[in-house]
């Protein structure tokens, strides 16, 4: 292994070696609890490359809650809206017609066989 090598397992662009005193990259960790769940952001790890980030994320974020799959994404690759833009998301007029909360249908969906199969999977 030569100095300053590029780690090919990380897509070839991840130079994991760097001058002393440089902080390692921050990786956002997404945990999938069960096979049909979406991956949910759980927190960050510091790691020099994706493989190490996955290895460290396993112990940092899956020791208590169930997990079947992990994603890690370089935090600087995540684009975010500005904090000052928060009011853009606040409705100015009544939009309760968009909420399904009162639909009896919703309760049926929640109690459907889809959820029941989840319970089976959990056992």
């Amino acid at each position, binding site marked *: *292994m030569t100095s*300053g090598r590029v780690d090919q397992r990380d897509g070839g662009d991840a130079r994991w*070696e760097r001058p002393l005193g440089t902080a390692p990259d921050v990786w956002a960790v997404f945990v999938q609890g069960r096979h049909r769940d979406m991956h949910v952001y759980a927190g960050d790890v*510091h790691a020099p490359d994706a*493989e*190490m980030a996955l*290895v460290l994320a396993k*112990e940092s974020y899956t*020791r208590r809650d169930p997990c079947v799959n992990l994603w890690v994404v370089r935090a600087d690759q995540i684009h975010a809206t500005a904090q000052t833009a928060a009011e853009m998301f606040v409705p100015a007029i009544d939009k309760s017609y968009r909420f399904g909360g009162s639909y009896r249908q919703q309760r049926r969906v929640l109690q459907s066989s889809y959820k029941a199969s989840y319970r089976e999977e959990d056992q």
Partner: protein
Amino acid sequence: MPGVLTAIADPSVRDAFREWLLRIADDELVIGHRHSEWTGVGPDIESDVAMSSIAQEELGHGRALYEQIAQDEGSDVDRLAFGRAPNEYRHAALLEQENDGWEYSIVRLVLYEAFEGARLRLVAASGQEPVAGLARLLGREERYHGLFAETWLTRLAGGAVDGPGRVQAALDAAWPDALGLFEATPADDVLLRAGVLTSSPAAQREAWTDAVRPVLESCALTMPTAEAREGGRRGVHTPAFGRLLAQMTEVWRSDPEARW
């Protein structure tokens, strides 16, 4: 329900299998204690958490195996783990050595996990229930330990400045003790003849060497040629173990009858 030992009719095979169980449990207890010494002082918070977690798991494996013996003999797990004289412990010297830098602990973990995974597969194939089933279960956790260790080893050995030299030095230091994992004792012969074990210490060592060689060589490390340093399997330990045992058992010795 009779335990795994009382189910073995031949007393010499029973004693030999007890010796083997104790050896595995002692290995796990002692390396678990060494790993736990990194808690709070690991190289970064994530690896600190991971190493601490590995330490807990190794201690848990040790406990599960001590329980198999204790259950058969009506004894107490804590007394088995903490209440023996130093020469009654059967772990290999590799596991008792001080954590001489993160690179030593990582090299030791790489060498030990390759051994431990194969040993648990041997136990799983022994037909001695319920220990065989337990070994299959414990093997699942060892997989992550090996992955963590090898991921770290690759990064340390690939360092630009003094990484490769320090990892090689750690490997050279650990190697004779690692070969001591395979120290042959009369118990191995008895279990081989009885068909409980299907691989001799020498054959296990050969398979282990074949398994670790590609890992080490892919890190541009040189396979050491030093001879084995033995004794641990017969209860002969280094001064490092005396210090470890004194610290590890301090709380238990303060009141051996206490229920925690």
